[in-house]
């Protein structure tokens, strides 16, 4: 079943056409990645899905048209985004940041989920009373992911979770993303790190200048000479 379906999605910033009528599908339970060069329009696509920028086209989520739904109503429906640059609240404590993730929830399982995040990210447990602005970049990224999980997402949009992290941490973050997907969360992952993204994804989209240039099975994309040359840093052939 298709969980997210975008058709002819367009985003304009003044005169700039950042997203040029793309079609994109994410099936329930899938891990789909969206790769592309800087400025290709990946973040704009995610922001459009979440209603953070003015958009046109059609967006359906869980069988419902969300093209006019304000951003703050999406977490209640299980659509949660970790924005580019993490977007933690620097002057709230780690625990308060996590509590903000569960803001839209009213069910009684919040305390249990908090402990689950601390079990997955022991670093955060040690620093739960510390303000989030004092965390290292990697810790902040963990916090941003843990905070999103506090919302019990059905569809998780991740915008460059590995940005600015050391290789060790990048590998760890990718492990975590794969683990989250295994637990049944559908994921749309935007990444610069094309190889790692394609290695863990089921399917992928390659974005160029606001349009989808290629799409298909992740394995097929990994083997595609155009992808290998442009995104995996290998010579043609």
């Amino acid at each position, binding site marked *: 079943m298709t969980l997210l379906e975008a058709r002819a999605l367009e985003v304009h910033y003044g005169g700039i056409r950042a997203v040029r009528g793309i079609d994109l599908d994410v099936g329930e339970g899938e891990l789909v990645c969206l790769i592309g060069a800087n400025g290709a329009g990946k973040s704009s696509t995610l922001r459009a899905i*979440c209603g*953070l920028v003015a958009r046109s086209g059609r967006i359906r989520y869980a069988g419902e048209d969300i093209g006019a739904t*304000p*951003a*703050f*109503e*999406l*977490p*209640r429906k299980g659509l*949660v*985004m970790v*924005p580019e*640059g993490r*977007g*933690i*609240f*620097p*002057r*709230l404590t780690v625990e*308060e940041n996590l*509590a*903000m*993730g569960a*803001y*839209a929830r009213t069910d009684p399982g919040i305390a249990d989920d908090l402990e689950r995040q601390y079990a997955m990210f022991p670093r955060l447990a040690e620093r739960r009373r510390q*303000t989030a*602005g*004092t*965390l*290292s*970049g990697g810790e*902040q990224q963990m916090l941003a992911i843990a*905070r999103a999980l506090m*919302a019990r997402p059905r569809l998780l949009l991740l915008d460059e979770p590995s940005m600015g992290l050391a290789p060790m941490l990048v590998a760890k973050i990718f492990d975590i993303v794969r683990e989250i997907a295994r637990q049944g969360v559908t994921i749309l992952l935007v990444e610069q790190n094309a190889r790692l993204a394609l290695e863990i994804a089921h399917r992928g989209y390659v974005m160029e200048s606001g349009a989808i240039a290629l799409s298909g099975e992740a394995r097929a994309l990994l083997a595609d000479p155009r992808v290998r040359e442009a995104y995996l840093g290998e010579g043609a052939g």
Partner: protein
Amino acid sequence: MDTFVQQLVNGVTLGAVYAVVALGYTMVYGIIQLINFAHGEVVMIGAMVAFTVIPILAAAGLPPVVAVALGAACAVPVCMAVGYAMERLAYRPLRRAPRLAPLITAIGVSIVLQHLAMMIWSRNVLAFPQIIPLVTFSFAGATMTGVQIAIVAICAAMMAGLAWLVYRTRLGRAMRATAQNPQVAALMGVDIDRVIAATFVIGAAMAAVAGVMFGTYYGVAQYTMGSILGLKAFSAAVLGGIGNVPGAMLGGILLGVVEALGAGYIGDLTDLCRWGIGPAERCADGGHFVLFGSNYQDVFAFVVLILVLVFRPSGLLGERVGERA
């Protein structure tokens, strides 16, 4: 010494009221970086509403304390409505506009409210009926009236209540999150329009109570009273570090104390005879030649404001927390 303790008591009383008003400035600034110059007018409207209702209730034979409490109970919802309306009608449409636009609008809103009040209540000074019996308590060489004690107690309770709201509740957490990153707060499910409106309404409710207390303390209320009071509370907010909730509380109390001590001593300190440089004919037989009398007390708030802006623009408790991108 007696003057010192007495002025300290007076200063804390006045400062507590400043603090409550300053919280309204600081919360709104914290969340949308707007200096809501109209906030002082909300205080004024609170006082005017109460001063309209209280004499009627007192004439109907209600006990004074009940009459004042009911007066405040009328002022609070009126001010909350005013706070909500100004955010909804004047500031929300300008949220994406350049900073200067809402700032100028705030000045406009303040003028509009002041003139509305003038049309409703006339230019006259409303006098508070002499209904509250004067009870005084003496300690350490100072006297404190029942009204002063009530003001300090009510302000302390309101500040404690606000601190609880901001630091311990879901709404308070959403307010702080919105202040730090409204877009991400929205991604967490926070309806930031509602949170911002709530901030205005809460600030206005406290301003209403402050207006009633201020009016009761001085016994008068007039449509112009909001300007100077608002400016002083704003100075208090800047002194504490604008946008910082504990800062507004500290700034308010400090400003009240500085002002009261200043008023208590400025006459003595600017008495040229005391320093032996006054004109001889005036200083003979223990005479005085005072340059600045206690009527200059309003100056202190602005001297403090200027000193803060020059030497510590981020205020006493201004943000110094480590922040990484």
